[in-house]
């Protein structure tokens, strides 16, 4: 479980997150909405542990551990992973090498790459000259290899062409152990522990026994056509201004805009 309590964050001298509360239970995926500059990426970077995002108040707990001041690599090893919107290009570092480096034992990189239609890129320098869509596929491939328990996605659909968006969507579903036709969970807290002797689990039981958590930033909402989520949040001016059914929130935003939506929801 990821638990964020009254988080306050500064970047340089600027307060960018003023008061953020967030709880993601095992198996849940949340969608993070918000206008440009509302602090969405900052929230993800803070959860990942980027040191330039200074936590000035509040607490982040993951899997029961206080990770508020934990280093970025320790967080990664604890099971947090991130798909970046604009990751750095690193000359000379082959994509294959970085995927190998973040792979857990037994991950078949070639098979993963084939699935992501990315085989030709394995021997290219990471992110060097990659298009927007190629970056996204590379990021997801790394996350797959990493097999993170909490995956953070920063606008996974941006720069992706129509042909590849379903691939991206399906991959996110796989990563988060989700099915594209799911309904949001009514109340995840009340899910009963699945303890069945049968090797064949019903869809319901698979859903209930899944543990992967996701937090997805979307600006356009396109990804919602492919990825199901349990909750939606609106970040506005560094505060979580609204929570609810992701599709409902998205509908509201389209109808009345972020400002009004944040006001209503608050």
């Amino acid at each position, binding site marked *: 479980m990821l638990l964020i309590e009254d988080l306050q964050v500064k970047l340089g001298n600027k307060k960018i997150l003023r008061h953020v509360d967030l709880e993601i239970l095992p198996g849940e995926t949340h969608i993070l909405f918000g206008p440009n500059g509302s602090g969405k990426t900052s929230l993800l970077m803070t959860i990942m542990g980027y040191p330039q995002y200074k936590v000035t108040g509040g607490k982040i707990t993951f899997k029961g551990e206080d990770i508020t001041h934990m280093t970025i690599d320790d967080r990664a090893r604890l099971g947090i992973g991130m798909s970046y919107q604009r990751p750095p290009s*690193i000359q*000379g570092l082959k994509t294959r090498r970085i995927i190998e*480096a973040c792979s857990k034992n037994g991950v078949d990189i070639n098979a993963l790459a084939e699935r992501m239609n990315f085989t030709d890129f394995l021997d290219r320098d990471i992110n060097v000259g990659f298009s927007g869509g190629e970056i996204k596929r590379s990021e997801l491939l790394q996350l797959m290899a990493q097999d993170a328990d909490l995956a953070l996605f920063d606008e996974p659909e941006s720069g992706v062409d129509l042909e590849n968006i379903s691939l991206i969507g399906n991959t996110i579903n796989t990563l988060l152990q989700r099915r594209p036709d799911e309904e949001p969970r009514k109340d995840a807290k009340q899910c009963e522990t699945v303890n069945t002797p049968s090797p064949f689990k019903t869809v319901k039981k698979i859903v209930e026994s899944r543990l992967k958590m996701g937090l997805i930033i979307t600006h356009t909402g396109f990804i919602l056509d492919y990825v199901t989520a349990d909750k939606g949040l609106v970040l506005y001016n560094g505060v979580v201004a609204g929570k609810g059914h992701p599709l409902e929130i998205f509908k509201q935003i389209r109808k009345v805009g972020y400002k009004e939506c944040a006001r209503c929801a608050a």
Partner: protein
Amino acid sequence: MRSLDDKAHEAKDKKAAIGPDIDLNTYSLDSPQHAAVKDLKVMPGADKEKMAFAGLDISEEGRSGTYIQKDAISIHSGSHQDGLEIIPIKKALKEMDWLKEYYWKLASVDTDKYTARARLDLQNGYVIRALPGKKITLPAQACLYLEKEGFSQNVHNIIIAEEDSELHIISGCASASHVTRGLHVGISEFYVKKNAKLSFSMIHHWAEDVVVRPRSVGIVEKGGLFLSNYISMKPVKSVQMYPTIYLVGKGAVARSYSLLVGSPGSELDVGGRIYLKAKDTRAEIVSRAITNGGNIISRGDIVAEVPGVRGHLECHGLILNGGIMHAIPELKGMVDGVELSHEAAVGKIAQEEILYLMSRGLTEEEATATIVRGFLSVDIPDLPAPLQAEIDRAVDLSQKEVM
């Protein structure tokens, strides 16, 4: 006309144009005797290990021939492939009359005191030649090994790729583990004839108080290709070299790649200079240098003398742990219609890159090493895969030791 020996005598005390001066009299010219070695596997383990660092494959599998010299003595020399000749230069000078057309024809004995010394106190070296039309696709290997403390090893190498031939050489230089101090002077003359292809990869693996003064000159004829690679990652007191390549035939191509690591106390002044003297010639000089506290000067110079030629220079330096990085790229176009460009950058590893890798679970040290390894990875165009692998291996080994 004055003889070459006269000229050399006159240049005996002539300081080099660049680089720290060396007092040659403090190095011994008396080489111990070393027994010839027929089977490389019987060499002492410590020697084999050092030579392996410099790219020598003791098994000789995947090699077309081998030359090994310890101090002044050639201990092994032989080709395993038809069309490839590997001969100690002293022997070749005695037995092959034609060699005088190549010996000291590109390099000048009076360049400085180092060329003069190699002329006056020659202690062997090798002649490696691919006969006309012969494609020697497996690399030939050479190792110049310094075993005597305080020794002055003065060698002269002549490399010839005859017309339509192909030749690849790994030439390693290393010193025995007990050697701390020594001098290596190496004259190399490269002849790449019409439509021939030559790659020469030099790997240095010296010790902390060894000084090194290679003096190399190459000439490439019509349609020829010359790849010259240099790797020096181990601590060394001082290396100064500025190999020069003349592209004299239409469509000739030269590429020079250097990978350098400067450790504390090391002074590396390494460059490459290419003259484009014929139509459609092309030159590329690429260097990647990291200083860990050492002083590195990375030079590059492309001179375009005729229209329609192209050259590109790329000098990238990283300062990791103090030290000085001085990139000096030079371009000179002497006529209309030339295309010359350069990019030079001196900097540090971007924090953003380290954090990116750390977010994949690498520690800060692992992330740094991974980025440094990437920085030193260059895919050298036209270099056969086994040689690229050999260079990658040399970089891997040295990085583990140095970083």
